[in-house]
């Protein structure tokens, strides 16, 4: 199964604004994506509550998984999003 492991780049972690941006992007993706932190159970990336509950901070490694048509492209996009600092200036 295609997977990507990526380090959270947002200063505040995968919370608040960064979590919202990530979850919205995952919800729009053509395939179902899961996200997990360490050895914990993978959770759906389109679930805001589950993504928040990961408690991922800046520097935490998370793994994305997806299967099906477009999985690789989707994972590339989402991984790039997680690696970016989504708290940084957006003016």
């Amino acid at each position, binding site marked *: 199964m295609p997977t990507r492991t990526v380090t959270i780049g947002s200063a505040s*972690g995968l919370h*608040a604004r960064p979590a919202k941006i990530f979850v*919205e992007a995952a919800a729009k993706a053509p395939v179902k994506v899961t996200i997990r932190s360490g050895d914990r159970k993978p*959770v759906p990336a*389109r679930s805001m*509550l589950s993504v928040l*509950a990961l408690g991922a901070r800046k520097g935490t490694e998370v793994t994305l998984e997806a299967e099906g048509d477009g999985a690789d492209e989707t994972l590339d996009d989402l991984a790039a999003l997680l690696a970016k600092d989504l708290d940084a200036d957006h*003016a």
Partner: protein
Amino acid sequence: MPDTVLTGIGVCPGTVAGPLLRIAAAPALPAPTTVTDIEAEVARAGAALTEVVAELGRRADRAADATVAEVLRSEALMAGDEELRDGVRELIEAGHDAPHAIDGAFATFREIFAAAGGYLAERVADLDDLRDRAVALLLGLPMPGVPSPGHRYVLAARDLAPADTADLDPAQVIALVTEIGGPTSHTAILARALGLPAVVACAGVLAVPDGARVLVDGATGRVATGVDDVEVKAAIEASARLTAAASGLTGPGRTSDGYAVKLLANVGSARNVPAADEAHAEGIGLFRTELLFLDRATEPGHGEQVADYRDVFRAMAGRRVVIRTLDAGADKPLPFLNQEGEPNPALGVRGLRVARQRPEVLTTQLAAIAEARAETGADVWVMAPMVSTVAEASAFAAAVHEAGLPRAGVMIEVPAAALRAADLLRVVDFLSIGTNDLSQYTFAADRMCGPLADLLDPWQPALLQLIGLCGEAGRAAGRPVGVCGEAAADPLLAPVLVGLGVTSLSMSPRALPAVRAALSTRTAEDCRRLAALAVAAPGPAEAREAAG
């Protein structure tokens, strides 16, 4: 004749009538019921969650503030969460009814969030709010929080917190009445910012039945029930005449004999600048920078701060903007500063004192202000909140100049600073008196403490005497002394403040026309005479009588 007349403290003038609605309390879970049709129960729970999502979306759409809108959309994502719905379905299949299933499904996440601490633990309140909203819908109860009935009404509450009012809809809410709170409480400040008639410390208002028509007079503090149309019409017309008299004047502030008093506006972001312009403000006397820092787990970066300040400076090109460095602590705790656990936050590490522990927060902010100033043509003055000593003022002025900013000042909020005003003016360029905090610290009376509201009356002679010390020091040094607290918004008090030596008054833009009109009827000599009378009075009522 009205049925009952309640009296509180009027904190924002204006007269309106409308049905009174309360902030509804969170619904209690009813006794569990037996579910016979599982699919119907799942659908019922799902529909409630869907309506919560839709309601949050509507609130986000009408929120004027982009940050507020974003927070509401994040909450909508939580309420619409598919994992949450799966949890609800499982609980209903296990025999729970919809309200209990929703409560249980939220509880799963609540536990994880609470255990994680920090940012997630703070989101527990959001989860509880979402659950309460869904449960209220299921039980046919009013939504908790500020009502949104789709028509105009008078909002009543025990007290209002910033969180309750972040997205308050001024198209629906026509007046605010709270049971507790004082002239400087959040309710009063919000009311002035929105121009809503408001009465605080109004005992008995929560006993008025929901939906009953009330007549609110934000000048006298009267709240009447059972009034007829004739009385309502007469009261509203009388209030409108007063407003019309004030609105005819424009231009810089001056006494009738031409003594100039700068009339400035208090703002929190560029969003408030149009209102300041509409009121013909001569500049900004207090630019609060806390908004950008609120609800943040981390400090906003240099670039984000530059952008925020630049918006205000650019809109004020050529005019004065007095920007206040971060005023955190006490009633405005900021998560990233980790200030929990102070036994007495109002007397703790707040305002400029934060720089003792986190100097980089101040230097980052000053650098951002300097950069924003360089890109615009505004006359930027920088001041620090919560200064007590000359040493603090001196260190602050050095940091301001180090950042390349020309003018440094301090706020006078602590009696110690007022007593040493002359010494402070040897190390800084100007003073700005924050009368709300100066009252609180002079009278040892918490700003949020309703029963002590009389001590926080801006007409208290001891407060006026301290303001007079600052005014005298300013005159002697030839340096400006402003007032940027709520006292500056009182048209009767304005001439007294000017007589005490105050050279600028900064207030909510809405209050400017009435203050401008009041000053234009007095000579500078009148102002000095009134000031002497007010300071010599034995108490606030006598001071008002003598000088009002």
